[in-house]
């Protein structure tokens, strides 16, 4: 089924490419929408394994494809990596914007993208460094308000995302009894390769 789909995709792409040689028609602007993903697991079995996600596909990518550019970001507990540098073959990267309103962010920054390094992460790990704060007294992880992760995808396109919750069922009042490692996040993906997140 997957093979069939990608074959179809290949055909369509080929068609577009072949067409565009003659008539330089602007492709219809793809309406970009905000998408919310709920209960995305992140190593819930506590084996130290990542789960992979593609913005283009809008869904989880199987683990077998971890060495490809089919995924853009991957989750393992509180760590989120990009398909770049030492952690993936892609051309990805990320910027952690702070004190930024997700909806109001109209454009991805032109530069400043961090890639995965030997000792560094494109999205820094640890409480207060990246996307979350850890309340050590109550042992609860909460996303930092105003943090927007601008992601450069494996194939060099842009998405903005914000983490909404880290617990199963995305409870508003999180308690120690809630089950962690279930991400709820929101993103806007710009498939045309531009840095704009505005709806046209």
């Amino acid at each position, binding site marked *: 089924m997957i093979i069939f789909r990608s074959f179809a995709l290949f055909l369509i792409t080929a068609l577009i490419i072949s067409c565009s040689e003659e008539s330089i028609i602007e492709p219809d602007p793809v309406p970009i929408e905000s998408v919310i993903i709920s209960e995305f697991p992140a190593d819930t079995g506590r084996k130290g394994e990542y789960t992979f996600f593609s913005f283009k596909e809008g869904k989880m990518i199987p683990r077998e494809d971890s060495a490809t550019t089919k995924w853009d970001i991957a989750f393992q507990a509180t760590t989120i990596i990009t398909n770049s540098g030492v952690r993936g073959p892609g051309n990805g990267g990320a910027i952690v914007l*702070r004190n930024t309103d997700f909806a109001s962010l109209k454009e991805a920054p032109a530069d400043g993208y961090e890639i995965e390094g030997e000792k560094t992460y494109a999205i820094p790990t640890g409480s207060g460094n990246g996307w979350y*704060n850890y309340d050590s007294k109550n042992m609860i992880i*909460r996303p930092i*308000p105003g943090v927007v992760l601008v992601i450069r995808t494996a194939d060099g396109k842009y998405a903005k995302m914000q983490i909404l919750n880290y617990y199963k069922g995305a409870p508003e009042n999180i308690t120690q009894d809630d089950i962690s490692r279930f991400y709820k996040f929101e993103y806007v993906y710009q498939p045309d390769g531009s840095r704009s997140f505005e709806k046209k």
Partner: protein
Amino acid sequence: MKTMLKYRLFLFTIFNFLFLINLQSQPLVINGRVTDVNEFPLKFVKIESMYHNKEFRTDKNGNFSIPIKDYGKYRLKFQHFGYTPLDTVVDFRQGIELIKIVLSEYFFKSENVVITGTRTLKEIENHPIPTKVIGGSEIRFSGNNRLDEIIGEQSGMLLVEDHGRGVQIQGLDPSYALIMINGEPIIGTMQGKLNLERFAIGNLNRVEIVKGPSSSLYGSNALAGVINLIIETPYNDLNFDLSSRYGGNNTLELATGLSKRLFEKKLGFDVYINRYYTDGFNVDDSRIGNTVPKSETYSIITGLNYRIDQKNDLNFRLRASFENQSNQFEVIDNDSKRLLDDKTTTNDGNLMLQYRHKISDASNLKINFYGTIFDTRTDFIFNGVNDKYDSLLFIQKLLKSELQYDRLLSSDFYLTFGLGGFREEVNSDIIADNTAIAYSYYSFIQTDWIPFESFNIIASLRYDAHSDYRSSMSPKIALSYELFKGLSINGNVGFGFKAPTNEQLYLNFTNPAAGYSVFGVTYVKKGVEKLIKDGVIDKLFVDLENLKLLVPENSVSFNIGAAYNFEDIAGLRINFFRNNIRDLIEFQVVALKNNGQNLFTYANYKSVYTQGIETAFNLDLFDVLNFDISYQFLLSADNQIVEKIRNREISKIGATGVVRPVYLSEYGGLFNRSMHMGHIKVNYVNKEFDFNAYLRGTFRGRYGFADLNGNAILDSDNEYAPGYSLWNLTFNKTVFEYFNLQLGIKNLFNKKGNVYLLTTPGRTFYLGISFNYYK
């Protein structure tokens, strides 16, 4: 002549008396001698003459001479460090040659003398270091039987729960207050916190509370204040107590005490035994097991004091307590819920041996040996089967010896010098090599100086060196000035420090469920090197060579206040305080492990402050109705957070759903601090019927309990827990002279169910009877 003198030395009002001898003398000079009760002459005694409006002093032999114009009555005031002041009128008639004045040493029993603020006995009035005293009768009439309960009823003291019950003073956490017994530190802390519920209080003579820093005398942990529990052999010939109390949650306390003085009171002996049992209680019925577990505690406290001769005395004190707790809770084991029995035994004991030697009338030497041990063991066993799920063992030992030397250099200058050292040992499964041993040495010096009438200045300095963290120098200066009779002002500035906890120094812990590890600072280098060898470390974030010894958390504190007393009827106190605490110890990430989890150690990071105003008012209406009302206003903040808010680096989602920076005005400071807090005590005494009713209330305003919006700071209304008040009421009635009946109600208005409240079982009643015989 000598025998005559002795003969006439019959016992007067306790120890103060005048003695006159007939002989003719000219010219007109009042000659006299000041001695202590053993007829040792006292030198440098300050003598104020109202007639001359000037000061005189005794010479090296305790003699003085004051010229006068005429025979008659002269008012003289004698003052001497460590002795009860004597204000007397001398009738100087013809023929009197020598006036003999006897000053009595301060006795602990005296209500007006305290020791904690200076390590020397000193009058409480106009003391530069204000000291709050909870007397033995208040402890007994309150019906409280555990230390946390009586402390929590005092002005400026707020009970909080964190690894047991502790007290927040001036907005600082319980681990920033030092708890002592007879001036010696109590051990047995968990994460640096001492559970005050461990201590029976039935035999305490008094509790002294000094707020503000005292590290300059006592070293570590004396930042926010010092609580000193004083137990000593009563001075009576014989005391015998028997008491029993029964109350809610099947709580039963039985206690008996005996003390006796023998050989013309030279030898004193006391023993106190207490058994405390409670079923405990549960505040959350949806959970299995108790919030406060079932427990049984035996305590024995005994002491011996022996006055060898007029210059030497020996003191010995032993305290031991044994506690058994049992509880149950559920765990998930292999995806199924199983019931666990939790059995905890806690034993702790301390032993003190003290030798005091009077070198001369102006100098004293005190040598103390102190040893204390705390051990707690917890076993988690699957209910029904004898399978052990887990067990924890923690043993802490401390051996300490100390020497203190006091010397009166002149009539208004008192010097105290001391040095000591201690050895600490910790044994636990969760620390590196299961054992840690550390050594510490210290010395301190204090001068207590009265440069002129009604002005007192005390300066002290202590140096502490420790084998496992950086050494500390703690100075302090305190002064008081009596503006006029009844009104005095006082202030102090001091440095304080808090040693890193055992966990911060020695921990070697890996969370079995989450997989992260925490290493104490003394172990982290060795530990990480071992893990690298084992191939468990993925990435190292810091250079191991750059990891530093911890600096003790340290503070600079300011207190300035005034006290006004109108006779013994009414009093008003006010105190402004500010505590700046630096180098707070926090987690630091060292490495990433292969399992994706971090490895932490500890490092000095942030700085915070607390500041506020405390006021207290007391009124005594015709010895029938006593009021004691206090209020504290408190502000606190984390300095780094303030800085970040100023730089607009912390955001929240505003009312419109759009992200915006947090305003400084929204920042509520540190969590678990109430801006408003207060206490009220009302005691109604009916002497005719030997009856009293004693009502106490504690109020605390709203306080931050957790971050809910993810920005890690207190900045939103729903992050506050609502305020509350708790009331206790006790009735006492004395019958047949020796019996006291007690009826008490704890938590009068049945406050419960609020998750943010102190753990309280709701309203409970208790009934007690005690027999107290003394001679």
